[in-house]
């Protein structure tokens, strides 16, 4: 259940999958944090395309990595968000931190 990852040119991509709840957020967190500490990437991408369920534990997971990347002076982006997860992510206020990739259905600004 540990996520697949890739690292390239200072960008660490973590491909999350399955269900993210309180039970399995812990191992994902520990695994991801070890990698962040090792690589100290400038940019962290959390890819949610294969996540089919998430409760507020997923919010905690994103917020924690957000803080960690800030500590290292890096940035974080949550990408490929399935439509079913968008509501809980936006409810959390994560949208205000500008870490969520925009919906494919709205106008996309590519920076």
């Amino acid at each position, binding site marked *: 259940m540990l996520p697949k990852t890739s690292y390239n040119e200072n960008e660490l991509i973590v491909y999350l999958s399955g269900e993210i709840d309180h039970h399995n957020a812990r191992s994902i967190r520990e695994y991801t944090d070890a990698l962040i500490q090792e690589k100290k990437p400038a940019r962290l991408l959390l890819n949610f395309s294969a996540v089919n*369920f998430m409760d507020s*534990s997923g919010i905690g997971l994103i*917020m924690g990595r957000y803080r960690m990347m800030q500590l290292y002076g890096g940035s974080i982006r949550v990408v490929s968000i399935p439509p079913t997860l968008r509501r809980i992510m936006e409810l959390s206020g994560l949208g205000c931190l500008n870490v969520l990739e925009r919906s494919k259905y709205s106008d996309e600004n590519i920076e």
Partner: protein
Amino acid sequence: MKILNEMSLSFDSRSANEGFARSAAAAFLAQLDPTVGELNEIRTAVSEAVTNCVVHAYRDEIGKIFIKVQIAQGNIVIIRIRDKGCGIEDIDRAMEPLYTTAPDQERSGLGFSVMQSFTDSVKVRSSVGHGTTVTLTKHLSLRLSNG
């Protein structure tokens, strides 16, 4: 409110059971032919309530969590999640968005906000030292295929 069908179950407050609990509730409610969105909302709300029992109610022990799911006339779903744990001293505060007593575990403090947002009503009864009951009510859409 006339109850048409009901199921109940109890299980240990181990985090491994969080997935079981939300899946069991969703499986029982499949007979109402809910939309994918409704089922996902119910799974999420149940997951939040059960996680509260695991993380807060039984913080230093393993106790029993009791779930009762009822289907009432008019496609109304009532889900009760009950524990015999430590209870909540200040329910209003516990329900405040972003309030958490477990920031070290990266709890976001959004459990009750998610329950409120994903169901029609959330009622909490609690007694310190005796336990907590969370009652979630949700009205599902009536789909024509139900006949």
